[in-house]
């Protein structure tokens, strides 16, 4: 069998590559596991998402009831839905930690620019997964949060209104919005993810793990190479340990804190108090509250969108902004730290502040 396969696929070459693959071993090695953990959560999402697809019905009339059916009637449906919801949130968390760890360790440097860009784009796709998936149970909080979220696009000049109509499938959030969010969530985004993730993983394997500049400098000073460990079994077993911890977290959260379904959305009811997006969008939600109505003669919301777009653009093209000098690296480290503190403070304010 093996011989038969080896004639048809480069089995020996792959095996040799795995045998010879080594991973740098230093005091920051622990951050290498975050990417794998994000991938683990993504795999959980794919599996549980497919299971949910068996019963979920993407229409305004049936969506809520079908999710309720999954949670009450389908054997272990409550667990599958709860794992899907928790895993989505943990995946976003892991992806953010992965992004900042890569950023602080300057792993985006040449020749890993494309690895970085594909990773940032994957984070955006994950956020899009979260935004579209949030609406699918068609509950009250999700309905009004989607209305507020899609409203933001209306502030963009010229194309704003068209964009809102495109996102919603009409002037308002309706069953048409649900259907297109569903389509994007289960078809468009997975297709984009497959391409980006394939590219990302291929490049990670091709270039290997990046060694942080400080470790590289010390190794050069000491005149010794950076220590490494075999990918198999040393790194793989440690990765498996991380995945198992993630699995334990998922199981505990899903069983002890099952994800709530809330009340069915009523488009004609007034928006209830305490409407808020998912936690990973809270910092933008909170920051927008502090933006004045007019900034330099422009609409405040538009200015906020411009600033956020510039920030996102800077993040994507970070490898080309960093000139790879000590001064440039220091500036980026402090800017990233400031951004991180800003996000954490805004999120904390959103949780503790006035719900209105």
């Amino acid at each position, binding site marked *: 069998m093996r011989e038969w396969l080896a004639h048809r696929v480069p089995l020996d070459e792959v095996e040799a590559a795995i045998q010879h693959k*080594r991973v740098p*071993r230093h005091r920051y090695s622990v951050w290498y596991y975050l990417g794998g953990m994000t991938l683990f959560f993504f795999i959980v999402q794919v599996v549980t998402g497919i299971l949910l697809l068996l019963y979920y019905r993407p229409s305004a009339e049936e969506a809520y009831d079908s999710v*309720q059916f999954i*949670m*009450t009637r389908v054997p272990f449906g*409550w*667990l599958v839905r709860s794992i899907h919801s928790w895993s989505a949130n943990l995946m976003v968390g892991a992806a953010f930690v992965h992004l900042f760890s890569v950023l602080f360790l300057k792993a985006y440097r040449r020749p890993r620019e494309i690895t970085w860009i594909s990773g940032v784009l994957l984070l955006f796709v994950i956020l899009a997964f979260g935004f579209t998936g949030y609406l699918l149970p068609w509950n009250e909080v999700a309905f009004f949060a989607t209305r507020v979220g899609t409203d933001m696009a209306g502030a963009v000049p010229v194309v704003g209104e068209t964009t809102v109509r495109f996102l919603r499938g009409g002037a308002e959030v309706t069953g048409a919005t649900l259907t297109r969010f569903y389509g994007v969530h289960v078809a468009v985004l997975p297709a984009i993810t497959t391409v980006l993730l394939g590219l990302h993983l291929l490049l990670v394997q091709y270039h290997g793990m990046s060694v942080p500049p400080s470790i590289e400098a010390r190794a050069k000073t000491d005149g010794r190479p950076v*220590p*490494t*460990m*075999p990918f198999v*079994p*040393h790194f793989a*077993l*440690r990765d*498996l*340990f991380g995945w*198992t*911890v993630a*699995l*334990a977290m998922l*199981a*505990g959260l899903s*069983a*002890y*804190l*099952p994800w*709530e*379904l809330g009340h069915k959305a009523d488009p004609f009811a007034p928006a209830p108090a305490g409407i808020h997006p998912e936690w990973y969008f809270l910092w933008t939600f909170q920051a927008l509250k502090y933006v004045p109505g007019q900034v330099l003669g422009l609409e405040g919301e538009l200015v906020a969108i411009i600033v956020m777009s510039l920030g996102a653009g800077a993040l994507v093209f970070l490898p080309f902004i960093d000139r790879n000098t000590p001064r440039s690296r220091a500036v980026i480290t402090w800017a990233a730290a400031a951004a991180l503190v800003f996000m954490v403070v805004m999120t904390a304010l959103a949780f503790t502040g006035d719900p209105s």
Partner: protein
Amino acid sequence: MKRGALIVPGLLVLGVLAASIAVRAHARQPDSPAQPPAVPAPPARSTPDQAAAAFKDDVHAKAGLGCESCHGQKTSGGSYAPVARTAIAPMCATCHADASVMRKFAPQVRIDQYAQYQTSVHGRQMAKGDTRVATCSDCHHSHGIVQVRDTRSPVAPAHVAGTCAACHTDAARMSPFNRSPDVFSDWSKSVHADALLKRGDRSAPTCNTCHGSHGATPPGIDAVANVCAQCHVREAELFKASKKAAVFAEMGQSDCLTCHSNHHIVAPDQTWISLEGEAICATCHDETTPGALVIRSVRKGFDDLQQRMRDAEGVLSRAETAGMLIEDGKLAMHDATEAHVRMRVLVHAFASPPFDEVLEEGLAAADKSRAVGDDAMDELQYRRRGLAVATLLILGFLATLFVKIRQLPPS
């Protein structure tokens, strides 16, 4: 005598004006329906200027009528003579009882108000020349009359009780007619006032709902049930078909009022149904009287259902707090609550059979609700046990991995 005769209508006009101001102020406040209506100040007479100002907003002014239409030509002194109180209703009726006149302005409007007024206590007293009783302008105002459907109107649903109270809370005024001045106070504490004034339910009963508007008269003992039956249809049917109806008729007891009172009608409670203490049934019944068995059985039915509903709610609440979905339990609880409401209606049959059937439905629904809650709690325990096993397995796997990693040769 003439001076005395002028004082009463003068005071009435002033009162109407004060009432108008009070009503308008009341109407301007958005939260005012949550409060009992203020009782208008004593009657007071308006000055010609005040009357002219109020008339600008009057429905009659909009219809093209002027001062002369009611007051006739000016006197030699250059002013209009007030209309005598006994002449007010007949004067209004010249148009309002004439279909050929009224259809020009409002084709659908009724024209029997004066005929009804003549049958009322107010109308009959006024016909005798007793000007202390109400006439058209006391309730509708004399100048500044607006349509009844206008929320500013003193006879709009939310304001009727306050308008009646202007006279009916005045002990001195009510005393000669042997009427209680407490009716407004009693009604204000009733479930009907709550519904109208706090919940804003414009269909809730106020004075004219039971007494009539223009033909206002206290319903007699034999007519009370018909009055209540306007809304409480099923209760009235059950009562009329019950043995109790004949017994009450024989005793000269009023059908509904005997247990529920007339103006101070409070939400009924199952503690009313008992043979002991202050219970309503205990007023006439004790262990020796007929019906004692039914009273005990009905009360036990209510207590049993309430207890089971409380138990089920407790379990459902615990299950929901633990994150379980208990929609079926809530639906069953809804059925139990509905059965409870129907039982409260069926009490008016004063017999066990129809009551017991619905009680069984209610108990079954409460039990089903409880069962859903219990199942949810069992499921929760099952999940927790499952998680404990899964956690142990995962921890075991993690420990194995840890040992394996430690045993790996140095890289």
